[in-house]
């Protein structure tokens, strides 16, 4: 099941790796020092009796300040990096050529409404290589609209409209790509079973599906 990583998720992964590896390095250094000190300075058998006065040492405020400034520098660099990333991936789509889909979460499913009035439940069909803006709200309780493979999410809150956008990947020879839409906020007994499918198809397939469904709806 090797689906292509959606383009909006690649930024996320690269930032996650930078911060993640820094964290792993910090963990190894601290824990390494701790284990080294415990092993080296542990009380061994046959040692000379312990003399308290030899083990007193002075307060070293200077050293503590040095440690603090190292971590402040690291955090500043990474947070500037993260803030340049945040608005790009969240707030304004890079193009005005976006497709808009309204998302209404309710107990316990997602309802998607396309710009021509077509409504689907738990099935989100999108054309490939398109920027899509979601307008997310809820009919009843607090939900979350989580596109886990796209590495983004937003809360679906009653009385409030939140927006996020994604760019769908290219098909690259596949017939259709399938991703998950998950609710990750406890919303009642059906929370476990609240998920939808996101299908990415070619632009022509998508247009055909949209017009077929709409005409079925209009004819019915």
């Amino acid at each position, binding site marked *: 099941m090797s689906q292509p990583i959606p383009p909006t998720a690649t930024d*996320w992964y690269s*930032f*996650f790796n930078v911060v993640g590896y820094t964290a792993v390095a910090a963990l190894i250094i601290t824990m390494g020092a701790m284990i080294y000190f415990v092993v080296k300075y542990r009380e061994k058998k046959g040692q000379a009796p312990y003399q308290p006065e030899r083990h007193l040492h002075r307060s*070293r405020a200077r050293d503590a300040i040095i440690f603090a400034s190292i971590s402040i520098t690291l955090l500043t660099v990474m947070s500037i990096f993260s803030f340049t990333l945040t608005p790009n991936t969240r707030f304004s789509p890079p193009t005005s050529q976006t497709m808009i889909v309204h998302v209404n979460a309710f107990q316990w499913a997602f309802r998607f409404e396309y710009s021509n009035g077509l409504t689907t439940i738990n099935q989100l069909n999108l054309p490939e290589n398109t920027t899509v803006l979601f307008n997310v709200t809820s009919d009843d309780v607090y939900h979350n609209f989580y596109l886990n493979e796209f590495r983004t999410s*937003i809360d679906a809150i009653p009385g*409030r409209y939140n927006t996020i956008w994604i760019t769908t990947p290219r098909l690259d020879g596949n017939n259709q790509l399938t991703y998950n839409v998950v609710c990750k906020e406890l919303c009642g007994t059906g929370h476990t079973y609240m998920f939808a499918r996101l299908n990415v198809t070619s632009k022509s397939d998508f247009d055909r599906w949209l017009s077929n469904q709409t005409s079925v709806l209009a004819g019915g």
Partner: protein
Amino acid sequence: MIKRFSIKEWLSTTNHKRIGILYIVASITFMGIAGVFGALMRTQLATPNELFLDPFSYDQIVTFHGLLMILWVLSPLGVGLANYIVPLQIGAKDLAFPRLNALSFFTFAFSGILLLGSAFAPGGGPDVGWTFYAPLNTMQFTPQTGVTLAVLAFALLAGSVTISSVNFITTILKSRTKGVTWRRMPIFTWSVLMTNVLMLFAFPTVAAGMLLLSFDRILGSVFFSSIEGGSILWDQLFWFFGHPEVYILVLPAIGIMAEVIQTFARRPLFARTVFLIELGLVAILSQLVWVHHMFTTGVNYNLLETFAITSMAISVPFEGIVIQLVISLRKGRIKVSTPLLFSLLAIFTVVLGGLTGVLQAFPVLDYVFRGTYWVVGHFHYVMAGTTLFGLLAGLYYWWPKITGRTYNERVGIISFILSVIGFNVLYFPYFFLIDMPRRVSTYTFSSGLAPQNFVATIGAFVFFAGSALAVLNLVWSYRRNVTSSSNPWDSKELEWTKNYTGNLPGTPETVAHSQRLSERQGQSSQEDDRAK
């Protein structure tokens, strides 16, 4: 120590030592119940498409596990130790208001029983998670009486906490004996003081929230059921309390870790004054980060960036605390025993839990982590790790003081090893479950979440056995009946060095004191005597 067991005496006591023991026993009892709930959850999640628990029961168990562990186990266990130890560390006769102390214990115990009783209410128990998100918490979506009872239990607990924090703050400010100056006050007492100041600031909002919610549920008001802003109002009220609560749990454990490390490494804490300033900074900053729980609610972008910065800023003093604890081991003469091992384990979990927390402070990452098992892993490392192991270290450390008995060192080390393995096998796989939402009662096989969950369940049982063994070891020490000496660890702290019943005459010999003595070549004690 205790002549004859009399229930009447224990129920009518206002003695800080006895109330401390009551707090410890009650919270460990609640821990047993909440631990069984945790084990049930892991059993349900061991295999995909499992039908051992239905979603409604599972949601109730999730709610009870969270509420009990956070508010009725970890917090009161720290309060219990503080009750016993703080008056001894500052040379006070008792807490400032002994009767209020009894009142806060019995309010706490009653609220816990009320919460557990809510499981048997008509229509079932609370199934809204420990966060009670609006509007799921209103009558329209959860009509069962159980939720109302849980809300009332929470409000009562907030009352109990407020009473006890007023008591502790007054005691530490006013009842210190001559010679226990701010600089000489032991670190555990400092951490308890900061914890209680935090409690006094954090709990009123949640108490107000719970009262408004009970008005909604009983009287039919519309604070949280209104479409316009009800959810966000609850988020603000709850998380203004909810985030400091994490630090309320962690700070006493940090205080204990510092005490244990300086006792067993036989070396004063590295840069003690800086350590205390950092504790204070953590306490202040912890009140200024709550919006990071609301990054995905569509908050104003400037607000989001501001709270991302404060959330990262809080990691700087915390990192200082951890580095100083580690450096305090250097050039010591380390006596490796159970309290020290649990403290070291708590350092490991606070580093890992803290670093994953820094990752969550970045909004772009938090959009994904929020509400997934990554977050569950993160806060279990901090709470089930640092707080629980720190408090266990404190329980082992002060056990000879509290009971006069020696525990079995070998069993203690076995329980430590089981805890290390079980804890990490249980919670480390959670960092590979970013695709799994929290509080789901099952998952499908095709989602690729099965191996991590199966491994975590194995870890859960090992961890359960380890922590049960750690507690049983202490209980067994009663049957073994090996009496301990009055200061088995050669500690320099006041609660060990003086065996007294009332206020201390003269200047007590604390670690901070002897540290200052060595700094100023004996001048400080003369200065202090002159000042008095």
